[in-house]
């Protein structure tokens, strides 16, 4: 929690709402917020209550954005562009190419995009993955490329669409951000489908590297370092509100 407006200012009159009054107020505020109803998130199991990467990132973004709400054109506002809705998607399924030493190596991530609201325009989308220094590839330059899995084929390699390429050192540590905005049109058209993203790592001389050996952390990483997708939308104004 936190941020502005943590507690009512002193001297502000307060009154407990009655049950019906509370329901009415809730319904009206939800309509203003553009929500059809109150979200009912599932309580996470006790073991997974440690801070996860996506919520931590979103909280940082909230603090940057909340400080910005007063003024137009402030730094965070520029960083977010024209977006007024940001959604994070946790990695649902992860697959590695499990063919021993056969190249090329890759790692595939799937995200459930069914919650993307209708009528929103995607302004940007990022895949974020944490990298620890690689002990296997000291001082090597690595190229990390990201593809969208457009179509899976039973008898041959899946159809892929190139999204982004980043170059880094094997010893680097931190969040690697890959631009996956180009895949957004496809999500909006086929929102019932999971988003499949495939990640390849190569050395400068073109040899494929196992992403795990390159230090890229996947689903088995600590919760605060697990990969996720963050998407920036330009929302249509309160589409759910009905005229009165």
């Amino acid at each position: 929690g936190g941020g502005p407006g943590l507690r009512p200012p002193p001297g502000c009159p307060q009154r407990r709402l009655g049950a019906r009054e509370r329901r009415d107020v809730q319904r009206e505020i939800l309509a203003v917020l553009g929500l059809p109803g109150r979200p009912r998130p599932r309580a996470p199991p006790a073991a997974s209550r440690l801070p996860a990467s996506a919520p931590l990132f979103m909280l940082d973004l909230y603090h940057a954005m909340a400080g910005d709400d007063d003024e137009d054109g402030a730094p965070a506002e520029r960083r977010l562009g024209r977006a007024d809705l940001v959604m994070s998607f946790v990695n649902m399924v992860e697959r590695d190419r499990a063919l021993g030493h056969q190249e090329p190596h890759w790692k595939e991530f799937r995200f459930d995009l069914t919650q993307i609201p209708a009528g929103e325009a995607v302004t940007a989308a990022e895949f974020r993955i944490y990298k620890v220094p690689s002990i296997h590839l000291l001082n090597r330059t690595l190229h990390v490329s990201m593809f969208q899995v457009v179509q899976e084929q039973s008898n041959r390699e899946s159809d892929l669409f190139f999204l982004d390429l980043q170059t880094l050192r094997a010893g680097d540590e931190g969040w690697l951000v890959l631009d996956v905005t180009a895949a957004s049109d496809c999500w909006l058209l086929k929102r019932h489908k999971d988003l499949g993203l495939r990640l390849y790592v190569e050395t400068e001389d073109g040899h494929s590297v196992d992403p795990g050996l390159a230090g890229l952390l996947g689903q088995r990483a600590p919760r605060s370092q697990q990969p996720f997708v963050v998407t920036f939308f330009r929302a249509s104004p309160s589409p759910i509100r009905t005229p009165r």
Partner: protein
Amino acid sequence: AVRPLRRRQPKKSNELPQANRLPGIFDDVHGSHGRQVCRRHELYVSFQDLGWLDWVIAPQGYSAYYCEGECSFPLDSCMNATNHAILQSLVHLMMPDAVPKACCAPTKLSATSVLYYDSSNNVILRKHRNMVVKACGCH
């Protein structure tokens, strides 16, 4: 147009009229009826009181403010009055039953951001425009 409202009492002596005793247009400018001039007041919306802290991550509430007060002639520069509000206030002086005073309303609003979980436990940050009163004025 305002002149007919002035009913000057013949001066008994050389004393100057007291500003706060002048009839007509200065009567209820600064709360002579116990009402304050148009300004911003505190209004806190508590997500905690709404029982929403299981899905709203931040904030727990926010100051939305509201505008209240008199918009009486003459409208000070601090009242952010529109030209129309000034004219309406003048007309109100002459026809108080037919034309009301200008309204005290928000002149500047700002956004507020809400961080919450959706039903699939995705974390969503949404910026809602025009949720907080930054300034009030006479409209």
